[in-house]
């Protein structure tokens, strides 16, 4: 049967809109469906607006250290509403940018909520239009990029009410600055909000179920991060299980249990940051195979339903924008019959708290568990010239090598702007660099990146500046 579009993409987040652009670049007639804002959670309620908030927080925190630089300000203060406004403005700017990109690439944007019905050669997409009415689209292929939302835990009362119990979404645009917070979950989202609100002076307690914060990171980084955040006044409850979240007259109470001891934490608000739930409801009706809510996909994002692809958060962890974009490009290329070059890139992870945390590849523990003979190297920023000059000496770089082959297999960093440095190691691992390459590469001086060189040298007992 004839089809209106070659590709229709459901969801205009960083996975969907990038997939649409790539499809259009490859000459496919493409439409994209979005029920809310172009750019999805990432641009509107995630990656981008949080970075705006964190920058405000970082600058404000710096004001209290100005004396060390020979500077002074009188009566440092902030306007919370303006901080939030700036963040919303940044989100709006970026979202408008996506509208421009869709237009530039001749991608038809359909505003509304999509559902799938059986069809050939791919499922029919039925859109309940924002403007009213509905539209049925039959395309050659469908890319499901419906994303995810915050997970709540009704059994313990950890369900957002938008007032005192927040998700990331509420935390991004509250009416007023909360005096105190309990953050449940110490992943990237929880830690970033803890860092932001603490920088503005809120009392912040982070509760983590595992016995260390930021559990996906290398244990040494977790330890250093906890120390750095505690220095800034954040308190932690690790190995703590939340048993009940309740609203009270003045705020919330969060009952926890740690090491057999029960405790009740009280605060003005509570942020629930315990992971995400994929937006995949109702997809079984077209026979789609799901695994714990996530769509089961093949190498190119293809699903068990002919003509249907799934990418990004809907298709499973890690729930990261860059992973979604990568999968989106791959799916679009597969649909177009374009052979994606076989580049095997590890997926880096970044947390934009102060200090920042960035990592790629295996942690030391994971490498050892995989039976790899590990050579690890470390280098602290406190002896790096640029870091000392900038007064940003917190943190370190850690490298993990496979001792047998010399391949770099992991890198972990904590410190100022390390999220901008990790890419060097992502490139190195992707291109299958060995210690010889990393030792031989020239690093500009003075840069904090020199610590990357030193950490690679240290793994082989060749560190220069310690």
């Amino acid at each position, binding site marked *: 049967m004839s089809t209106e579009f070659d590709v229709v993409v459901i969801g205009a987040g960083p996975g969907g809109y990038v997939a649409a652009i790539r499809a259009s670049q490859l000459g496919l007639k493409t439409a994209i469906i979005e029920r809310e804002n172009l750019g999805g959670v990432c641009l509107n309620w995630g990656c981008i607006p949080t970075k705006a908030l964190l920058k405000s927080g970082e600058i404000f925190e710096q004001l209290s250290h100005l004396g060390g630089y020979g500077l002074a300000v009188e009566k440092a203060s902030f306007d919370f509403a303006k901080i939030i406004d700036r963040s919303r403005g940044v989100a709006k700017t970026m979202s408008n940018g996506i509208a421009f990109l869709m237009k530039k690439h001749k991608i038809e944007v359909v505003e509304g909520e999509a559902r799938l019905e059986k069809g050939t050669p791919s499922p029919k997409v039925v859109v309940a239009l924002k403007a009213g009415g509905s539209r049925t689209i039959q395309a050659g292929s469908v890319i499901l990029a419906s994303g995810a939302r915050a997970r709540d835990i009704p059994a313990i009362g950890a369900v957002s009410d938008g007032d005192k119990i927040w998700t990331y979404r509420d935390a991004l645009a509250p009416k007023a600055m909360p005096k105190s917070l309990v953050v449940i979950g110490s992943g990237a989202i929880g830690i970033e909000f803890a860092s932001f609100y603490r920088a503005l002076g809120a009392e912040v307690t982070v509760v983590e179920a595992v016995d260390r914060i930021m559990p996906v990171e290398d244990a040494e980084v977790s330890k250093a991060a906890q120390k750095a955040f505690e220095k800034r006044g954040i308190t932690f409850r690790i190995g703590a299980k939340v048993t009940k979240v309740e609203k009270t007259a003045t705020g919330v109470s969060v009952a926890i249990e740690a090491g057999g001891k029960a405790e009740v934490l009280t605060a003005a608000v509570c942020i629930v940051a315990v992971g995400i739930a994929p937006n995949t409801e109702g997809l079984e009706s077209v026979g789609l195979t799901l695994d714990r809510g996530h769509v089961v996909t093949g190498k190119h994002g293809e699903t068990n339903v002919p003509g249907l692809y799934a990418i990004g958060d809907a298709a499973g962890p890690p729930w990261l924008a860059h992973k979604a974009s990568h999968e989106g490009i791959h799916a679009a290329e597969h649909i177009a019959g374009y052979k994606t070059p*076989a580049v095997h890139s590890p997926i880096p992870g970044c947390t934009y708290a102060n200090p920042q945390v960035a990592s790629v590849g295996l942690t030391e523990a994971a490498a050892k568990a995989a039976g790899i003979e590990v050579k690890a190297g470390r280098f602290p920023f406190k002896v790096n010239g640029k870091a000392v000059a900038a007064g940003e000496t917190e943190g370190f770089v850690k490298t993990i090598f496979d001792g047998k082959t010399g391949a770099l297999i992991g890198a972990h960093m904590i410190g100022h702007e390390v999220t901008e440095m990790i890419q060097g190691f992502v490139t190195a691992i992707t291109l299958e660099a060995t210690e010889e390459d990393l030792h031989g590469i020239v690093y500009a001086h003075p840069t904090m990146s020199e610590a990357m060189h030193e950490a690679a040298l240290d793994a082989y007992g060749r560190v220069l500046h310690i």
Partner: protein
Amino acid sequence: MSIDILMPALSPTMEEGTLAKWHVKVGDTVKAGDVIAEIETDKATMEVEAVDEGVIEAILVEAGTENVKVNAQIAKLTGEGESPAPPPAAAAPVAEAPKAAPTPAAPVQAAGETAAPAKAAPAVAPTGDRVFASPLARRLASAAGLDLKAITGSGPHGRVVKADVEAAGKGGATAAAAPKAAAAASAPTAAAEPRKVLSLEQMGIPAGSYDLIPLDGMRKTIARRLTDSFRDVPHFPLVIDLEIDALLAARAKINRLLEGQGVKVSVNDIVIKACAVALKRVPEANASYTPEGIAMHKHADIAVAVAIDGGLITPIVRAAETKGLAQISAEVKDLAARAKSKKLKPEEFQGGTFSVSNLGMFGIKQFASIINEPQGAIMSVGAGEQRPVVKNGELAVATVMTITLTCDHRVVDGAIGARFLAAFKPLIEEPLTLLV
């Protein structure tokens, strides 16, 4: 001022060659036009002449070096009237990748600076093409004793990556690796798995029990081209018998009548002529398959297989349909003689739209040649011999020759091949019709 002598390109497609022999040594004085070296490409040996006058200052590539890249510096010449500079300190074969855009040399004092090419001479790579491989892949291959060149890279631009080396280490497409191989095969442009070559020792032939003759350029080319063709071209044979008594009689008559003019036409010459005429009548058989489309050749350029020392070569009778038997005969004789002394020019054996291979003189009754890419078909001519035939229900004796047409099925289907042979057969059996 010294002048660089560079490896010449003997044909537009030549990328590398063997520096077979030097005719000069360091200190010899040469003038323009003097033969200074011999270069062997895959199929021909060519002489290199000096372009400038001067004294050979240094020979940078030794005689017998294989795979010398075109434009690589092979010797230095000191301009006339100058004393040779002290030998350059080890000629510094800096491992420098050939630059895409050569940095122009700083404008030196123009006087005396005659033919010094402003190009940075690419370093001589004595071991052939650069292999693109990740650092880790190189290290793993070296540790496992695997030759990177023998491994097909799956990375961008065919880069050999860790996974390729690991797969090669496991024996490539063995049963254990089958799921992986199947996945690779599903990729639209997945290259064929490289064939794993075992050493003779691994196959039970002890070292020392044989003499090893190094592969020369021609042998490598034969091995590569025919392996590629036999593996990649879907080929099939069509066989017919031809009665050639009339042809033999006509040939004897022609040769007797034209003996005074030095004409001596062979059966093969007539076969060439008949092929050319038949190809013009069935042009679909005079065609090449290309990914862009079927190339319908305008002339019948007939390549004739000639056995020579160390291999074979296929010089070409161009536009054979326009030539008379005497001319074809003379050309084939000349081409064959020069082929045997390896004096053919590349353009004399490259190209061709159809091939004829004849083993009749060796008593071979019937054989099927391998397609000579990109040609659509090749004819294999067997020996003419007296055989019993049935004529009008009676047993009779005729001189019969079996010919086999190997067709590239991508372009010459069975019916096309059959039509070609139907056009060819009467031209041979009734050679008078060749005149029409």
